[in-house]
């Protein structure tokens, strides 16, 4: 019993240490020179981030609508049509499921990224350069995650196209 308790306490302390090291890692890159640069470039960086925020909102709408259209108006109807004609569209169905999952991830990750970037914009970089940079690191991480998911969606669009081409070739061969 005492051993288990000791194990639990050790694990808890270990977890706390890992967390503190991670946080310190995020803040470790902020040198006095960087703080000075954040302050000196504050105004132009705030303007650039504001512009980026607007561009991203447009991109999110544009890409989001396009990705939704591909799924709702192309992938899903074709899968339904293949199923109603008793044709094997299993591979296409799997890709569609992965695609929809990736889109849901994209949707959630954009919200997280937008919130993170909004937090960066709320911080006064002249008064709180360290908080600004830490918030920037978080936003950068969220943006990277979003970019990866965006890439996954594009890969799935390519995969679906290639799988459909194979299906069509097989169908043409069978019915020629």
């Amino acid at each position, binding site marked *: 019993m005492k051993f288990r308790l000791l194990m639990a306490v050790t694990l808890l302390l270990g977890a706390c240490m890992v967390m503190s090291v991670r946080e310190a890692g995020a803040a470790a890159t902020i040198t006095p020179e960087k703080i000075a*640069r954040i302050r000196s470039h504050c105004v132009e*960086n705030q303007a*650039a981030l504001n512009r980026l925020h607007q561009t*991203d909102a447009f991109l*999110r709408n544009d890409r989001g609508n396009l990705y939704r259209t591909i799924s709702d108006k192309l992938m899903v109807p074709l899968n339904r*049509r293949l199923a109603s004609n008793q*044709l094997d569209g299993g591979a296409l169905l799997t890709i569609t499921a992965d695609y929809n999952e990736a889109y849901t991830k994209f949707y959630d990750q954009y919200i997280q990224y937008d919130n993170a970037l909004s937090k960066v914009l709320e911080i006064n970089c002249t008064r709180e350069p360290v908080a600004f940079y830490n918030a*920037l690191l978080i936003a950068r991480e969220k*943006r990277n995650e979003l970019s990866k998911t*965006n890439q996954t969606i594009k890969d799935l669009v390519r995969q679906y196209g290639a799988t459909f081409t194979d299906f069509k070739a097989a169908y043409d061969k069978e019915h020629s």
Partner: protein
Amino acid sequence: MSDHPHFAEGHDTIAIRTVRAHQFFSMVILVILISLFLVYVALSLYQSSGTLQLDLSRPGYDSARQEAVKDKEVFNGFSGDGPITKDTLNEFDTLYKKKAAEALIELDAFSGDALSDSALALDRD
């Protein structure tokens, strides 16, 4: 005797007597409170559902709104009903290739570079 209105009124609290005396005014306050609650619920849903992030009608999003308005082409898509023939597969192929080309366009969407130290001039003086 206890059913007499004046006797019953004597047992009411001050709040109830005030409401009875100012029924119209009380109703207006109640309606305002209900509408404030409904607005709170609506805004909470607006924020938690992610609609807030997609809303280009927010102040400060003029340029994004103008860009979004430009492209209003209606895309009907592929019908989910009907037989599968060579022609229908060709039709799907054409539609899919068009939309896939739009999706796969080399757009630097959400690349990490935009928030990098070099992009924000934080790695040099």
